[in-house]
């Protein structure tokens, strides 16, 4: 239900690769080189539980953590998030940019041994389009998908779409599925993909087990299998990691991470993610329609404190959406905490004794924590914040209806600047729930969308970003880190900025 907003990876552009310095030394390649290791089964503790394993239906991040290792897409992001061949070996684009022709890899089979052909690609894409599944918006400009022969897929577009590859390969919600597996309903629990591993058992509430797919088209995985267990409590996950019950987790207690980095018994690595968290004020309501009120609030916030409370420092403060490591990063920081300035702006706007409703959700506890800090900070300029904590579904409902003064949430997995700005700040944007309207910004975003010249595009987005920040459409707070830890036995694993968890190259020393 929320996949569009939370799991949608965006356009693949040559983003600066976001691994922190610590990772680059000696990580990535097994010390013993190409030697086939002992194999074995790696147990990974993930914080949530897959709701189901049909890649087109699920919206849960834990499902994608599992499915990342089970399914393939036509193309997929490499370590630098640039798109590289996967099921498609190569592709060509017509001169008018409206026809894309993909060559499908030969002799690819599903894990049950049946062949994967262009027909399966057509079936998968049409399923998403026709049934309007979660990822349907990614095909917004797609007119048709056809397979003139078993080795070729043709995608016909209605408008030039420079980020089509990212749309097709950005995440496993675009996976190529097997028709019979889907239609029997088995895909929910026993999905059949063409990826490096296959699901051998799925036990709700407990674990999901994968075994090596010996029919895999790429380099055979070294591991015999991967078991995903669900451990909600990070201290427990850490304990399990130390105790050897699991060898990998992405659920470390944030407050302990800096100490853990120095721990020789564990490997803890992080990468800056492309996620961002923000505060939005409802511009359809008074007095938040007044830019001065919004700017007053922006000046009242101490982002460093919010970040420290919400993420224990495992995040980078940012006043624009796009993280520092991105090629599209725009260094613009007009709002340093300045209570005098904030009070002055508020007074000019005539706002005194303001009571502001702030909507947050248990689904993302950091919003609840951050809200309490924000409330304390806004109290300083005379704004009383009433925190409203809702279920996520209810939260979305309220957001959709515009029933809020303000809310805090994050956008996860965006890569392309279009994904960062268009839906949120264009007056016709689907997620412009806070009612931001600025024709200049609309114009810039529309232009940038189809601009093929990279430099020009970057400049357009910077102009838009500046305006958005000046208007305080969103009050950007921080970009969190992706933090994962594993046992020193594990080799060949890399933390990825897009949060995809790939075990295909991993080996486990016994």
């Amino acid at each position, binding site marked *: *239900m*929320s*996949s*569009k*907003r939370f799991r949608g990876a965006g356009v693949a552009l040559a983003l600066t690769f976001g691994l922190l310095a610590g990772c680059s030394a000696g990580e990535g390649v097994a010390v013993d080189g190409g030697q086939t290791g002992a194999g074995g089964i790696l147990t990974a503790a993930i914080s949530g*539980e897959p*709701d*189901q394993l*049909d890649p087109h*239906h*699920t919206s849960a991040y834990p499902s994608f953590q599992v499915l990342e290792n089970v399914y393939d897409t036509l193309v997929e992001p490499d370590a630098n998030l640039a798109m590289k061949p996967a099921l498609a070996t190569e592709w060509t684009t017509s001169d008018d940019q409206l026809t894309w022709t993909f060559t499908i890899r030969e002799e690819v089979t599903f894990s049950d041994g049946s062949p994967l052909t262009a027909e399966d690609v057509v079936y998968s894409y049409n399923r998403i389009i026709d049934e*309007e599944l*979660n990822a349907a918006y990614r095909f917004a400009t797609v007119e048709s998908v056809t397979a003139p022969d078993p080795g070729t897929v043709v995608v016909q577009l209605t408008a030039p779409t420079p980020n089509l590859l990212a749309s097709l390969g950005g995440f496993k919600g675009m996976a190529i599925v097997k028709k019979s597996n889907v239609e029997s*309903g088995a895909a*929910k*629990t026993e999905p059949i993909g063409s990826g490096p591993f296959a699901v051998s058992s799925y*036990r*709700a*509430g*407990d674990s999901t087990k994968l075994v090596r797919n010996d029919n895999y088209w790429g380099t055979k995985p070294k591991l015999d299998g991967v078991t995903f*267990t*669900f*451990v*909600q*409590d990070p*201290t*427990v996950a850490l*304990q*399990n990691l130390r*105790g050897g*019950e699991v060898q990998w987790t992405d659920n470390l207690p944030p407050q302990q991470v800096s100490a853990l980095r120095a721990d020789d018994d564990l490997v803890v690595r992080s990468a800056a993610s492309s996620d961002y968290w923000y505060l939005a004020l409802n511009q359809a309501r008074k007095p938040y329609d007044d830019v001065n009120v919004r700017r007053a609030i922006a000046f009242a916030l101490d982002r460093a404190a919010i970040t420290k409370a919400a993420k224990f420092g495992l995040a980078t403060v940012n006043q624009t959406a796009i993280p520092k490591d991105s090629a599209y990063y725009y260094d613009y920081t007009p709002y340093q905490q300045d209570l005098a300035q904030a009070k002055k702006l508020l007074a000019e706007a005539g706002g005194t004794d303001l009571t502001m409703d702030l909507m947050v959700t*248990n*689904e993302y506890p950091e919003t609840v924590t951050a809200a309490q800090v924000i409330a304390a900070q806004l109290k300083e300029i005379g704004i009383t914040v009433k925190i409203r904590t809702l*279920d*996520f*579904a*209810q939260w*979305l*409902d309220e*957001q*959709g209806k515009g029933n809020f003064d303000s809310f805090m949430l994050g956008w996860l997995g965006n890569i392309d600047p279009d994904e960062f700005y268009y839906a949120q700040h264009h007056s016709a944007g689907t*997620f412009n729930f806070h009612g931001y309207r600025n024709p200049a910004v609309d114009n810039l975003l529309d232009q940038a969308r189809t601009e093929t010249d990279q430099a020009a595009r970057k400049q357009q987005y910077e102009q838009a970003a500046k305006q958005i920040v000046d208007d305080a459409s969103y009050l950007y707070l921080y970009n969190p880190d992706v933090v994962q830890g594993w046992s020193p036995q594990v080799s060949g694993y890399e933390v990825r900025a897009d949060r995809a968890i790939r075990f295909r190259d991993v080996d486990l020393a016994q």
Partner: protein
Amino acid sequence: MTRFLLRRLLQSGIVLLGVTLVVFLLLQLVPGDPVRVALGTRFDPETYEALRSRAGLDQPLPVQYASYVGQALTGDLGVSFRSGRPVTAIVLERLPATLSLAITAVVFALLVAFPLGVLSALRSGSVFDHAARVFSQFGVSVPDFWMGIMGILLFAGVLGWFPPSGYVALTEDPVGWASHVFLPAVTIGLVTASILTRFIRSSVLEVLAEDYVRTAEAKGLPTRVVVVRHVLRNALIPVVTVVAVQLASLLGGVIVIEVLFAWPGVGRLTYDAVQARDYPVLQGAILLVAALFLLVNLLVDLLYARLDPRIRVR
């Protein structure tokens, strides 16, 4: 006996029907449209209508209820909003975890409560009795989740004897299961034990005051015989009910403990369903739990009849 049985069956049937009504109405009480809520932001009229009619929500209420009950009778509790899988399967998957936890907890509770309750009654007024009463008063008052947290701190954190949470199926790895079940089972078990201790104590005390116990003593029977044959046999009849009721409510899943210890049972399922607003699953879990509860109560009544000859003939 047969009449007694039939009457109890009929009664349970009526109550169960009432339970289905409550469970069914829960969904109607959801402010706004549950399907709308389930869809979240991904709202479009077609999906909405499809999901609505798949859930049968476009029918008039009585028809919906009738078909809900009808389907429930055939074991069909609908499909999960979240995963699209059948609710019955989802709920039944969780039963073994809950079952193994509940039974372990009750066994543990009995091991503690039985000697404690009986001895404190036999020696009522003694130091031992006072200690047992303090124990049970503490056990009844302590929040189980707090005790669980403190248990994790001590046994998992400081001492490192047991894993702080998680689950291993008994059938797969009995030793792993045992080490995982220990903390949650003891946490629940201690609370249950204190309830049982009180109950056993007062039940034994009550029987001790009965004339037939004096008769038995007057016969010069050894104390052991008096206690076992005359006191306990009578005192434990009501205790059986309480134990069964405890077990039944544990089968409903001890939500907080299952959540705290990441135990994938029915309680956790309920909690997750609430979090995800997955109403069909919530409905199904509650219905199953209530049905189990009624079933256990029915069985207890039958067992009661076996134990107490006075009821047998009625």
